[in-house]
């Protein structure tokens, strides 16, 4: 049978072809609908969509509720007819927290700490992950086991030891055994790191900070998926191990590094455990925990005179929470594409 085919329209991605006996759009649609599994597919699709919608609602509802509460005036809170949409829209809760709880200073300080820690953690876990995945050396497995160990031992187990050691750092000292370390013997006192972000930086450099074990693991799995031939060809061309790492491997692993960076940045941002260990809160170095810590004084004065204080206190706390995560949400909206992409391409296998 001879078909005369005519290309009627040609764009970059599609070619429209007309040929003898080509069904019209309506006919094609009908035949598709008649196929037995079409209806099942449609039902499955709808069901799946509704399910996803429902789970999304469960995730988003608390945010909506918190945001709705944060715009409510004090009258709305005691008003039983107000459920989610405020009647008297007000920004006073936000204003009080921003001005009295030093919100912008806290954002600045936290941004600095999170950025420094996240950058170091990303790079260091990249280094360690690469070393553990691509090189065979004695104790490779043991070191990976130790990485897992740093994850398994809750950092709370070490909290008092951390406070003792990292605020007054000295080499090879065990604070509870109360002997003098080398630095104290030479300089008269251990290095005072309290109220600085150096303890956090140190932990990040050594790859033992908050959840670093997970980052190292993810990087290791990612590098395992990178074909060895890539490096071998670089070696053959005369590139050294480190040059290969910085010029070939690092550019390759940018998507995964963005994922790690997002994790470490946002988990450092909302962290309270380390912040409480290394900053005692007496100084003017405001952090996110100070934004959330207590109700601003101008609102606290209603504590005894206002009937809805019990709820209002929670509303203030939620408002502070929304302010704390607002920068993170903005960051997430820009980067979520990379978050999924990075990990999708990682080729993680077991």
């Amino acid at each position: 049978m001879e078909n005369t085919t005519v290309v009627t329209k040609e764009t970059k991605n599609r070619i429209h072809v007309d040929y003898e006996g080509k069904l019209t759009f309506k006919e094609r649609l009908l035949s598709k609908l008649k196929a037995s599994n079409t209806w099942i597919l449609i039902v499955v699709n709808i069901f799946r969509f509704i399910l996803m919608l429902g789970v999304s609602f469960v995730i988003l509802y608390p945010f909506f509720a918190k945001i709705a509460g944060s715009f409510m005036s004090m009258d709305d809170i005691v008003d039983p007819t107000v459920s989610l949409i405020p009647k008297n829209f007000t920004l006073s809760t936000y204003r009080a927290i921003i001005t009295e709880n030093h919100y912008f200073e806290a954002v600045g300080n936290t941004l600095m700490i999170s950025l420094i820690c996240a950058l170091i953690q990303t790079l260091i876990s990249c280094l360690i992950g690469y070393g553990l995945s691509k090189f065979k050396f004695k104790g490779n497995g043991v070191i990976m086991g130790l990485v897992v160990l740093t994850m398994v031992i809750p950092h709370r187990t070490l909290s008092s030891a951390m406070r003792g050691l990292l605020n007054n750092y000295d080499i090879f000292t065990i604070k509870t055994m109360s002997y003098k370390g080398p630095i104290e013997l030479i300089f008269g006192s251990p290095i005072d790191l309290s109220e600085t972000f150096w303890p956090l930086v140190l932990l990040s450099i050594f790859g033992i900070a908050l959840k670093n074990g997970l980052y190292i693991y993810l990087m290791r799995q990612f590098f395992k998926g990178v074909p060895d031939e890539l490096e071998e060809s670089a070696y053959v061309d005369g590139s050294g191990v480190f040059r290969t790492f910085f010029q070939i491997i690092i550019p390759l692993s940018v998507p995964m590094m963005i994922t790690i960076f997002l994790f470490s940045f946002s988990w450092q941002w909302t962290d309270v455990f380390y912040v409480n260990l290394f900053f005692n809160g007496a100084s003017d170095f405001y952090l996110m925990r100070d934004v959330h810590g207590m109700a601003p004084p101008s609102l606290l004065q209603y504590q005894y005179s206002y009937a809805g204080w019990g709820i209002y206190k929670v509303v203030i706390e939620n408002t502070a929470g929304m302010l704390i995560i607002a920068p993170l949400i903005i960051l997430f909206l820009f980067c979520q594409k990379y978050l999924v992409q990075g990990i999708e391409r990682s080729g993680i296998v077991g």
Partner: protein
Amino acid sequence: MTDIINSLADAVEEPEVQPNDDSVAVPEIAASELDNNGFIKKNTKKVSLDAKKARAGYIFVLPFLIGLVLVYFPLLIDSLWLSLTVPAETPIGGDSSRKYYAFAGLTNYFDAFDTPNFVTGLAAGLQEIVFQVPAIIVFSLFIAVVLNQKMLGRAVFRAIFFLPVIVSTGIMEVINANGDFSDISQSGIDDGSGGGGANDLISVLDIQALFANMNIPGGEELVGYVVQIVNEIYDIINYSGVQMLIFLAGLQSISPSIYEACKIDGATGWETFWKVTFPMISPIILVNAFYTVIDALTRPQNPMVLTIEQVSDPNDSSAMYWIYFLIIILIVAAIAGICSTFVFYQRRD
């Protein structure tokens, strides 16, 4: 004959008899490789590629090794020592006295079990894991499989599902635990504030009515389990973000050609999932089980952690943490043992 043999032997032995003689220097040795006395230098610089790579490997993991020695091990020993001692004082003279920690053996550990709430807190913490870990694994696998398919609004759903990973940690966990406006003022859906009672999404009674006509062995426990899962749905979703990401990565790494082969052979989606996807992803299930257990055990809202936080004495609390840590190790080892029997590792060439 003997002459010939001797001369032959001489000829053979000659280079060995006078190895240091310059006159018989082997021509392919360059002058730079000989030292002042004409000996061949001991060649330390030529290392095999493997050894070179091994050395580079050590340099890559060096930060971690230094950290272990300088920070992590001192911390571990410190904490361990704290748990094995009690505070003591010896008078030095006058009013002053030297404070130190005296070795006390395992007394702190035995004391821990006598502390009120410790055993109950431990039980509550472990129970939470038994409830949550399977639910989190199943849920995150399910969502990852769905998010891996082409569907309407997939990008938006992905963004929403990964929002809790970024946002609901640290301070937000504390804030979430206190509930929100709608939660206190009137009943809404349960959002992890753990209020219980009237705010629960479903109650045991509803489920019991549903299961009343079924005679399942262990039905009561099943009902309780389902109710708990549904009422903790917010927690479960919040805690399964990382797992979802890891599953998604694993699903992406399964070769599409396997699915194509299944399709050609006429396998249904259900069969494909259980015969291909599930075995291929089983190593990742193990990894996620690890991560979930560790995450559940170490998060600040864990009942066990909350109990230990209330103990003011540092010696007692570190002893409790070490007991707790040993239990974590046991659980992780048990999971590894159970899971490794069914984990399937694809041979890669």
